[in-house]
């Protein structure tokens, strides 16, 4: 393990990321406040990297874009063009909960017999550098209650952890893709000659402060989630309490669009005189038209049925099919819901605590 870790001081972070630019399309959280988002980096944007918070829109949008063209047709000739999917993308600074969200997407898009080719290609071409949450970015974070570990990201190619002293990150290289990143960083250390940007973890010079922080200030929000929550919630399908849970809901797309695990999409077409585009875009089960059938019948006519569906998909249906919960406890939907709905209340109610 030791020869698989190096330390990067915060001062050298830009240098380390610069070294990745020739090899990858690099995305990292950049911008301040409400503008904090995963952004494509180039030399001019290196200074905007901001690892202090967690963007409202999770990194899932880089694997499963808000909108993507599936193909375009030339209306004259009927010739179809299928857009290329970028080679070698690297996402820097993925939080552990968001990585688990990507693992949820992997199950939905790659398992059970149907492989979504666009998702599969992007996933294959993407290297993920995760960032451990030494402090929880939102007061609404509850990943630990959902079985997550804010300091671990097993599936990530590289895991960065802030050191105890807080002036550097240790990088652990966890996969072959991660070792490719290490090669780039190793050569950088050599280039730097007498003033190495990187210290090899195997060198004995590791002081107490340069060790990765193994404890941190973790989630203040703690939720009790029973193991049989899916069964309990399914048994409560007709419970009148769903109407109470949903009465404040405004039926918008916020909770789905900020969620790292929501993966519903729609396919539609834009017909122009010069080009016809078949595209797919995010969709949301809270919208009234989502479940509307041809002819106008809607099996989920009110927000009660829609909200129940959203919560049951998160906390029961996905578990049944894939053996994992479709909520990773990132807390975004709680932080951003305009009506202050709170999924943890559903978890506790389902568990019999309310």
């Amino acid at each position, binding site marked *: 393990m030791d020869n698989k870790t190096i330390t990067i001081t915060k001062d050298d972070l830009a240098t380390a990321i610069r070294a990745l630019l020739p090899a990858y399309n690099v995305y990292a959280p950049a911008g301040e406040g409400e503008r904090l988002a995963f952004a494509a980096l180039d030399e001019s944007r290196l200074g905007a990297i901001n690892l202090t918070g967690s963007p409202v829109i999770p990194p899932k949008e880089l694997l499963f874009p808000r909108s993507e063209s599936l193909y375009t047709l030339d209306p004259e000739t009927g010739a179809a063009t299928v857009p290329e999917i970028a080679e070698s993308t690297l996402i820097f600074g993925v939080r552990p909960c968001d990585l688990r969200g990507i693992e949820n997407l992997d199950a939905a898009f790659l398992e059970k017999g149907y492989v979504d080719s666009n998702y599969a290609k992007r996933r294959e071409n993407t290297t993920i550098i995760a960032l451990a949450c030494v402090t929880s970015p939102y007061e609404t974070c509850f990943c630990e209650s959902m079985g997550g570990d804010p300091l671990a990201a097993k599936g990530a190619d590289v895991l960065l952890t802030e050191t105890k002293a807080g002036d550097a990150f240790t990088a652990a290289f966890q996969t072959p893709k991660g070792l490719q990143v290490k090669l780039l960083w190793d050569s950088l250390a050599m280039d730097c000659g007498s003033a190495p940007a990187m210290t090899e973890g195997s060198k004995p010079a590791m002081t107490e402060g340069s060790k990765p922080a193994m404890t941190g200030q973790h989630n203040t929000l703690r939720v009790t989630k029973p193991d049989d929550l899916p069964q309990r919630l399914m048994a409560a399908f007709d419970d009148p309490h769903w109407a109470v849970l949903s009465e404040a809901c405004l039926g918008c*797309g916020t909770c789905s669009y900020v969620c790292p695990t929501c993966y519903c999409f729609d396919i539609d077409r834009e017909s122009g005189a010069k080009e016809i585009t078949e595209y797919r875009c995010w969709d949301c089960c809270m919208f009234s038209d989502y479940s509307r059938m041809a002819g106008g019948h809607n099996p989920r006519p009110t927000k009660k049925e829609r909200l129940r569906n959203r919560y049951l998909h998160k906390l029961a249906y996905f578990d049944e099919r894939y053996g994992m919960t479709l909520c990773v406890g990132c807390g975004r939907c709680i932080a951003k819901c305009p009506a202050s709905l709170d999924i943890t209340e559903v978890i506790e109610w389902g568990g019999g605590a309310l």
Partner: protein
Amino acid sequence: MNYTEKTKLIQTRAAALLEAGEVSYVLGWGATRFADKTRARFARSPEEAATLVYNEHCTQSLAKYLVDDRWPETRIAILARGCESRAINRMIRDNQIRRENLLILGLPCEGTDAERCRSCRAHDPVVYDELLWEPNSTGAAAAAELSRYYRADAVDALSAAEKKAYWDDVYARCIRCYACRNACPVCSCRECFVDMHRTGFQGKRHSATDNQTFGVTRAFHVGDRCIECGECERACPMGLPILAQTQKILKEIEALAGDYEQGLDAAQDNYLGAFDLDDKDDFM
């Protein structure tokens, strides 16, 4: 009077109304597990009335929930500050709700945490059945810290090129969650144009152009009826300054027509929606 005392008054009045069976529920705010968040609460029993809260975190305006229950069997009691009361007037004018279905418990307001409250010109309710405490001594139009059109004024100060960059940036960041639409008390079409995909009014694709089509159409559809509650902007998860849109429309109407403020009474016409049956429509 502090918030604890006000909360007590609300709870007591709500419990009495529910006890007497005078209303089917009292629409107010309740606590969440987060100290800085409250949530709309529909109190249906005296016990539930005891869970109503009132404080500076009651940033959400409650009026929109009235369209979820257009035909109540028994009256609904709603806690109404300036913004809720103006929304109620406008919703009555738009035939969305009926005055006789409501028991309006007026709450003279001192503003909440929401930025928009600092520009509010109607802290005291403009329509109510009873006030739960004394009106503000400064009157309805308490001296506001921000100007009425504070967002629109800021955009108006930009050059044409800067304005374009400003709105391009806003529409690029919009995620089309429609929280702004759904929170707005005067947005009340049974089926919104954005949900009519087959008509081609609004592409479902997320692109700056489609986002702009939505944003501008929404603003025009509510602009001359906007009661300036700021719910649209408060609801936006991306923190977009969209209040600038309807403020701009109101500002222009005021420049054309003089004093113009919506929701002050339930008989007011809206500027862009006014028509005359004798109009010749020569252009059509």
